[in-house]
């Protein structure tokens, strides 16, 4: 019997290694797998490359991981926010590398990795600083930039419900990067508000099929309890 659920956050992130590339779901704090990030902080892996839409908020979660100087590089679209002072300080001090990617290219490159494509020609960013030095091509009269897939060793995502086969559903706009990151990482670890018995998730409604998920850890949340 296959059971991808694990009993503890510690177990969920146990094999994350120094130098790993980790995708972290979420847009702002919606869909951010906070419990898994805290577990990575406790676990100790360092020299990490993080792929997330943002670069941490306030002092917790991704910001806390940054503050511990465990992140070598961050790949994101929108690092600068009202409460991104942890990232801002490290960046200005030259202590974290930034690869800035237009948000749609971030999503497309993640999806390309999950889909096994070698590269994509995207119109986004053509003629801008973010395409400098990149190969371009005019196709049917429109200009495109060649962008490469973004893969990861691990994806940490936050879903609403999951089952022992790793099937996932999400909640509202917390879905965001979860489904495509799950496809693009060698190992996907999902924090879910509720583990449900196999068969409880309607097969028409599963958003992330279990094939894309290696571990599921239940982390009940107040908001989910209220839903």
């Amino acid at each position, binding site marked *: 019997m296959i059971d991808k659920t694990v009993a503890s956050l510690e177990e969920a992130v146990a094999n994350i290694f120094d130098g790993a590339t980790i995708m972290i779901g979420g*847009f*702002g*704090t*919606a*869909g951010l797998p906070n419990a898994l990030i805290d577990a990575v902080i406790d676990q100790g892996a360092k020299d990490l490359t993080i792929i997330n839409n943002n670069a941490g908020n306030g002092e917790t979660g991704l910001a806390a991981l940054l503050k511990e100087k465990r992140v070598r590089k961050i790949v994101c*679209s*929108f*690092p*600068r*926010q009202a409460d991104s002072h942890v990232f*801002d300080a490290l*960046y*200005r001090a030259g202590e974290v590398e*930034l690869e*800035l*990617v*237009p*948000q*749609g*290219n*971030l*999503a*497309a490159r*993640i*999806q390309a990795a999950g889909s096994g494509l070698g590269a994509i020609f*995207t*119109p*986004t*960013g*053509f*003629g*801008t*600083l*973010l395409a400098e030095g990149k190969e371009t091509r005019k196709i049917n009269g429109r*200009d495109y930039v060649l962008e490469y897939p973004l893969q990861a060793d691990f994806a940490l995502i936050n879903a609403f419900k999951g089952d022992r086969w790793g099937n996932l559903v*999400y*909640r*509202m*706009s*917390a*879905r*965001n*990067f*979860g*489904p*495509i990151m799950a496809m693009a990482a060698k190992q996907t670890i999902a924090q879910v508000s509720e583990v449900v018995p196999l068969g409880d998730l309607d097969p028409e409604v599963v*958003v992330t099929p279990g094939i894309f998920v290696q571990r599921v850890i239940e982390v009940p949340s107040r*908001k989910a309890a209220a839903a």
Partner: protein
Amino acid sequence: MNRLNREQMAERVAHDVPEGAYVNLGIGLPTKVANFLPKGRDIFLQSENGVLGMGPAPEPGKEDPDLINAGKQPVTLLKGGCYFHHADSFAMMRGGHLDICVLGAFQVSVNGDLANWHTGAPGAIPAVGGAMDLAIGAKQVFVMMDLQTKKGESKLVESCTYPVTGLNCVTRVYTDVAIFDLTADGPVVIEMVSGMTFEQLQEMAGVPLRLAD
């Protein structure tokens, strides 16, 4: 001359959004357009973080941290709205499925280049978000901005001095004093605030303008 304030600019843009339009409102000033959309029209607001059919802000106490807009503010979902993942959301933009997006700008060039993501100032931490995808994706790209900076320099320029967000993408510019269509022959003035003359506007804009027929 009766300059429009920010609410009036938002109201003016909202007036031009037709029934059935799929629309993305950028963060900042464009977000205000939602407050003025005519109540009787079915207009579909898309949010880059995977929401179509976005409704107004929730009542106090009804906020849900899982339902936010691109500016990370709590929103609601209209009956008939739905959720989807980020790749599908940006496919909506890049694939040309949105009718209109409304963006703020530092500068717009006469041929429609947009600069709105980065001041280029030394030490500034760059952040782009979905701006570049929105700029090149929607069928019509509306910009909302004051025509001039606080120092009195026109933001409608021959060529952007700020780093560009997208090339040749802006179709219309709504400002505090006039509305411009950006055509193959340059900016065409389609509306001016009361008390404004074409000569005054030409002086303020600093780039060659034409009046609509």
